[in-house]
């Protein structure tokens, strides 16, 4: 259900008036170094993306303590729920800004993020996108929007490069590949990108069939049957968590173990996948933006997460949401004030090398995009995730080909 807006009432009007009066009367307070920066965090906490939103929230929860230990200023987190739809996202962005947010972070879903970006741009409040791959967002000429996450073309380029590296390490390549993808915003963006990006990499395999499936599909037996019938060596896939589990189950039931499962999206490395499928979860390789396990801050983040949420593996959602907050705190420190223009200028000159994600660090190009991000190649192993590539981030050797499902106990 989409949410409907709200009726004005005295409380809101008074609050609005009070806020205006306060900011007019004491402008110096806002700029004082000591005051925590008010950061509005917009995530889908309800609706169909709620699971992901709640996962990202974990990255938010453990951030303040870590940021403090790094000597960065405090942040006051204001939580907003986009309710997994565009209207609510826009409204809540307005509301948070009205309530005094000086910076926004969000929102995982590209559609909702675009709505928030427009509000941020119009109000002159910086927005740091934690996760969201639609390339258009940083192509539209926004001045207040920054993204520390790869766009779909970047994801693809990095994935193909990593695959080549992986084939080099393993000494084997699949000759044919069947490509399955979810037919939603992300999946379609990735598919469109493939035809543009893949030819640049001279990949050793051919895509023999492309199978798109409905994101709301209850049962993927037909799709997997089709994939199996393509008789390819490996399975290339862009899916979400639920589909990943459904596909795996069908692979087991239909008795087909591909040489490798190469995922260029979320799902296959997530906790629920590992927990639910147990031994059957081993093997799939994901090419995803991920933490660099060898970086110092990664270890700190991992420990904090393990303490606050035992049993949850550190992964993309936590990493990039945390990094968005890291950027915010760092910019605030360098700007020395919460004035939006100062913040934006500070964010633009961000250069954090002591971060968590793979790559040289966090910096933004003229369009507000961090185009230096790299992806990791991770594999599921024994209920945990190991990093296979890039070399300096690796901590294990690949398992190739996958152990047949039927022979796993």
């Amino acid at each position, binding site marked *: 259900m989409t949410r409907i807006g709200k009726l004005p009432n005295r409380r809101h009007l008074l609050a609005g008036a009070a806020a205006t009066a306060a900011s007019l009367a004491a402008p110096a307070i806002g700029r004082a170094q000591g005051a925590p920066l008010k950061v509005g965090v917009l995530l889908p906490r309800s609706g169909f993306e709620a699971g992901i939103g*709640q996962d990202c929230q974990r990255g938010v929860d453990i951030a303040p303590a870590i940021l403090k230990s790094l000597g960065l200023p405090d942040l006051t987190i204001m939580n907003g729920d986009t309710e997994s739809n565009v209207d609510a996202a826009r409204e809540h962005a307005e509301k948070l800004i009205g309530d005094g947010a000086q910076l926004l972070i969000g929102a995982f879903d590209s559609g909702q993020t675009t709505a928030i970006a427009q509000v941020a741009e119009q109000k002159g409040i910086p927005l740091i996108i934690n996760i969201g791959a639609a390339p258009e967002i940083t192509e539209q000429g926004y001045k207040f929007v920054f993204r520390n996450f790869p766009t779909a073309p970047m994801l693809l380029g990095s994935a193909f490069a990593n695959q080549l590296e992986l084939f080099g390490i393993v000494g084997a390549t699949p000759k044919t590949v069947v490509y399955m993808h979810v037919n939603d915003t992300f999946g379609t963006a990735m598919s469109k990108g493939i035809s543009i990006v893949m030819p640049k990499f001279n990949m050793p395999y051919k895509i023999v069939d492309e199978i798109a499936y*409905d994101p709301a599909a209850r*049962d993927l037996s*037909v799709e997997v*049957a*089709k994939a199996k019938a393509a008789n390819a060596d490996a399975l290339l896939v862009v899916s979400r968590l639920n589909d990943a589990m459904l596909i795996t189950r069908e692979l087991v039931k239909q008795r087909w173990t591909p040489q490798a499962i190469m995922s260029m999206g979320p799902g296959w490395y997530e906790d*629920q996948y590992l927990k639910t499928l147990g031994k059957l979860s081993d093997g799939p390789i994901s090419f995803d933006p991920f933490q660099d396990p060898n970086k110092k801050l990664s270890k700190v983040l991992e420990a904090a997460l393990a303490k606050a949420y035992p049993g949850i593996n550190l992964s993309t959602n936590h990493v990039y949401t945390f990094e968005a907050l890291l950027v915010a705190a760092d910019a605030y420190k360098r700007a020395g004030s919460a004035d939006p223009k100062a913040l934006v200028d500070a964010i633009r000159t961000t250069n954090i090398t002591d971060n968590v994600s793979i790559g040289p660090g966090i910096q933004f190009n003229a369009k507000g995009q961090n185009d230096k991000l790299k992806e990791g190649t991770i594999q599921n192993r024994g209920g945990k995730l190991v990093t296979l590539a890039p070399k300096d981030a690796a901590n294990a050797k690949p398992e190739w080909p996958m152990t047949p499902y039927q022979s796993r106990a």
Partner: protein
Amino acid sequence: MPFDVYLNVAVGGVLTGLVYGLMALGLSVIFGVVRVVNFAHGEMMSIAMYLAVVLFAAFHLDPLIMMVPIAAVLFVFGYALQSGLINPFITRPEHSQFLLLVALAIVIVNVLLIIFGPDARTVQTAYAYDSYQLGPLIVDAAKVYAATAALLFAALLFAFFRFTLVGKAIRACADNYTGALVVGLNVNRLYALTFGIGAACVGAAGAMMTLIVDVTPMLGPSYTLLAFVIVITGGLGSMPGALLGGLLIGLTEALAGLIFTPSAKSMFAFAILVLVLLFRPQGLLGRKAA
């Protein structure tokens, strides 16, 4: 594509379709007799599915066994719902009824969301990954069990309506409301009973559906729509029609997904619906009712 792929997919489609059929059977009973547009049908099924998940997690009882108690719980729920909430709405305009059930559906979906969270839940039975291989045919074991149970339940239901007094009374109500009143049947009680029975069907179907798909709170609405497509295609008020409709839709979706692009396979179900509505509105096996 080799023939065995078509065969496998078709068999899978038929088996799933039988479980859909049982769910639709519940709606056919409700819609056909009580004439209530139960737009909360799929949501009722998700309640049943969550019950199955919870009971399995707590007691490790197979959903096929849990089918009976879950159906019973849903029966009580349906009975109470009809006599308590829906009865006054029978004479109200259709959109009132519909909105009542939409409101109910919204409440159910979100209560489930609050209680269980948005992540998919699953029932991991011992045979969850089993399949039978007969020559080129590879059949999903869980689907076979679910479909068999669905058929059994449906058979029981047919027997009930055909051979028991209560069953005949209910059919009388459906055929001729005024006549039933004249003859002295307690129509209100029979309506409640019928709704309860329809709900029990949904409950059983839900228990079985957990063997095939994972549960999320958001599953309800799409199943409601599916149930209506099946019931209309098969024929309102016709119980074999509901099963046939389920089978047909299950099969068509599966084959359409195989031949064309899977992401568009729902379009075929809708296309069938439109064709049926236009050219044979009473459905395949329905009688041309008033």
